[in-house]
């Protein structure tokens, strides 16, 4: 008897039982189910939610791999007292793609991925069994996003607590995938940030071992570019390095180049909304330009604590920090984002605007994209409401013209 038949028989046995959703989740992972249409259209398109989510994960894989190498690269560079001099991208790769770097990455990043998936999926399965619905695929993407948006040295217990909180409070209490108001991955990230602020917002967590070594003779620095700007320190990385990703930061957010590739995949496959990404970029550039203007008008002088971030050339905001990653992979989450076409333009634009604004005005935690997206997640239904209301009004007006 083939595997297919064995699994089919097992499925029949599980039918109607409590554990059926858990079994089906695993079964459908191996085989596209034998379900046929019973009403409505007799034929259906080829895509299902698994395929869609799978594409998002594949678009993130380059960022994950880069993040693993970068964990080691940053660690060894910091120990050596600074990154090797940056000449060109391809010359630099020989320092980057080394086995030592990968080993550090595998040791630090893979556990983050595993913990994120195991804890999150366990909760998803549990809720699916209790509420008797199929296991939805939403967490496949969330589980991949989480390790990419946390600092490399995040303790695993902290991550577990945060994931449990984010999945239960951020998603399951609203009814599971498709019903949540906030992006679950960002809920997890925000929980980490607000529950363990001393740990998460320090200038040490971004490079492996920087925290442990602090205060010892072997101390190494582990600051992100945004941190340096907020602390009014000299930037020790060039914008080229930031674009290619040879900088410290959360695991997956550093390489703008690879994020661009991910964005290209998502837009080409029609999975992410290019409108949100484009309008987000426009919003960030607009805000950056406004701040540059404020500086050139002389309203803010060098003494101000906002000066460094305000005077940063406006387009640099796209490259440094988590902006690119956030706008590509998290602002485009269809469930927590705006759902109408017009609404998407506003939603993306405002995320870009607020992301840069929060960066500048919140030096304690200069990563604005997280809060900007969460904020706009809350307002997305309001944006949609007004867009849909426009359509309703058009209909009412047509009626009035008719009766008048």
């Amino acid at each position, binding site marked *: 008897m083939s595997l297919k038949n064995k699994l089919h028989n097992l499925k029949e046995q599980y039918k109607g039982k409590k554990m059926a959703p858990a079994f089906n989740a695993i079964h459908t992972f191996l*085989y596209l*189910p*034998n379900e046929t249409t019973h009403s409505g259209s007799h*034929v259906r398109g080829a895509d299902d939610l698994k395929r*869609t989510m799978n594409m998002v994960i594949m678009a993130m894989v380059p960022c994950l791999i880069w993040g693993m190498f970068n964990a080691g690269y940053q660690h060894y560079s910091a120990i050596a007292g600074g990154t090797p001099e940056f000449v060109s991208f391809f010359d630099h790769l020989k320092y980057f793609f080394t086995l030592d770097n990968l080993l550090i990455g595998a040791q630090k990043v893979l556990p983050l991925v595993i913990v994120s998936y195991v804890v999150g999926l366990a909760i998803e399965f549990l809720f699916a069994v209790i509420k008797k619905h199929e296991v939805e695929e939403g967490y496949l993407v969330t589980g991949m996003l989480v390790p990419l948006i946390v600092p490399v040295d995040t303790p695993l217990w902290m991550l577990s607590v945060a994931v449990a909180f984010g999945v239960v409070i951020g998603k399951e209490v609203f009814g599971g*995938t498709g019903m949540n108001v906030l992006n679950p991955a960002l809920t997890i990230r925000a929980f980490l940030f607000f529950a363990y602020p001393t740990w998460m917002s320090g200038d040490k967590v971004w490079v492996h071992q920087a925290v442990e070594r602090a205060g010892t003779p072997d101390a190494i620095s582990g600051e992100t570019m945004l941190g340096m700007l907020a602390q009014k320190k000299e930037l020790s990385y060039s914008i080229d390095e930031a674009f290619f990703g040879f900088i410290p930061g959360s695991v997956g957010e550093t390489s703008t180049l690879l994020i661009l590739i991910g964005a290209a995949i998502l837009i080409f496959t029609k*999975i992410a909304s290019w409108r949100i990404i484009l309008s987000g970029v426009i919003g960030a550039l607009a805000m950056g330009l406004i701040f540059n203007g404020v500086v050139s008008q002389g309203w803010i002088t060098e003494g101000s604590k906002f000066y460094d971030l305000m005077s940063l050339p406006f387009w640099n905001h796209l490259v440094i920090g988590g902006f690119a990653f956030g706008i590509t992979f998290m602002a485009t989450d269809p469930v927590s984002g705006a759902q109408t076409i017009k609404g998407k333009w506003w939603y993306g634009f405002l995320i870009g605007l607020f992301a840069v604004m929060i960066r500048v005005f919140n030096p304690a935690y200069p990563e604005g994209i997280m809060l900007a997206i969460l904020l706009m997640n809350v307002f997305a239904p309001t944006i949609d409401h007004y867009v849909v209301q426009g359509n309703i009004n058009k209909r009412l007006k047509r*009626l009035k013209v008719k009766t008048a």
Partner: protein
Amino acid sequence: MSKDIRIKKGLDINLVGAAEQSTATTVKSNTYAINPDDFHGVIPKIVAKEGSEVKAGSPLFYSKTNDQILFNSPVSGEVVEIVRGAKRKILSFKVLADKEQQYQDFGIKDVTSMSGEDIKSHLLSSGCWPFIKQRPYDIIANPNVAPKAIFISAYNSAPLAADLDYVLQEKESELQAAITALSKLTSGKVYTSVGSSTSPLAKVSNTIIHTVSGPHPIGNVSTQIAKLDPINKGEVVWTVSAQDLVIIGELLLTGKYNASRIIAVAGSSVKNPKYYETKIGAEVASFVYAAGVDGDNVRMINGNVLTGTTVKPDGYLASTVDTFTIIPEGDDYEFFGWNKPIFNKISYSRALTFSWLFPKKKYDLNTNTNGEHRAFVVTGNYEEVFPLDIYPMQLLKAFSYKDLDEMEKLGAYEIAPEDFALTEFVCVSKQNHQDLVREGLDLMYKEIG
């Protein structure tokens, strides 16, 4: 006078097994059956009891809500069985056909000299009224409410659907009579949409003719109504399908109710996909036998693949369709079907699906859902295949949580379930949109009326 309606949003689903343009005869159907469920919302009241003799055109039953609306027997013969289901619900009226057909004589009419009231009572008494449907709610028209306009689509854009230009050829005089009659039923206009100027309907008078072009659902009446004269709250429009015009026209010209139809028998599981001349309510076997079926695990569909209903091989041709489709069932598993590259299925996205590379290729789709039912997640893809100025996802959600006020505001009066066939096709979450819409419209009809 000819104008154009053009749309860009939509999706043409190219399938193998299109009907070849030649008409064949079928073996004789012994029994014919009329299935009240083909007319949505009709509760039948029996006129012709079991064992009684009927002529072609004599009533079998009437609608409980309006006893003027009669439903005809397509042939003369004996009512051999009234099939009942659970709770004694009437499922179908079976008529054993006479060898020599006898037609009830309704009298030859001169349409031009008839008044609107005359035509209405003539159509009601001759059992042709069920051919007229109304929007809102997509049900049989209420004869007591005059419509603001009447719409006829003479262009089928659904996959594998019958080519109306072919089916209607040489029927110009019947079509003209029927349209003249319809034009007296409304104070407004009769709009006819044709695919090209070669359509038999392109030259008829008493109607405004538009040429339509674009992907499916351009052939759906709702698309044309939205472009020409959108339905507002409180307004009613009627629609008649082009094939039914022929029957109405023949009734007026000859006084006989002739239920003959040329249907397209199509689909990848049909050996000889072509057109067959048959009658409303004929045994499926009678024409499927002539067409031939490939394989034994197939689905037979009364109608096209998007909006038709499943029928068993021992079932009957529905009263309301011009196409009969047979495609393979898809009740099998596919190893790693959710992540491997797909070349043999149609997809709206490009997520390792490659149908975008071959826009002309014809596909052999089966009935597999290609995934399990999920909550609404993905946004923005329905709008790309939905040409009306309506927010499809928001309206579907209003239907699913039964908010009457919201349904009304979002445009539920303007649509029929068939308009959501394409959103259903591209739906990543495999929701049954047409069911949602049908249930929602029924609820509105019940509560608002």
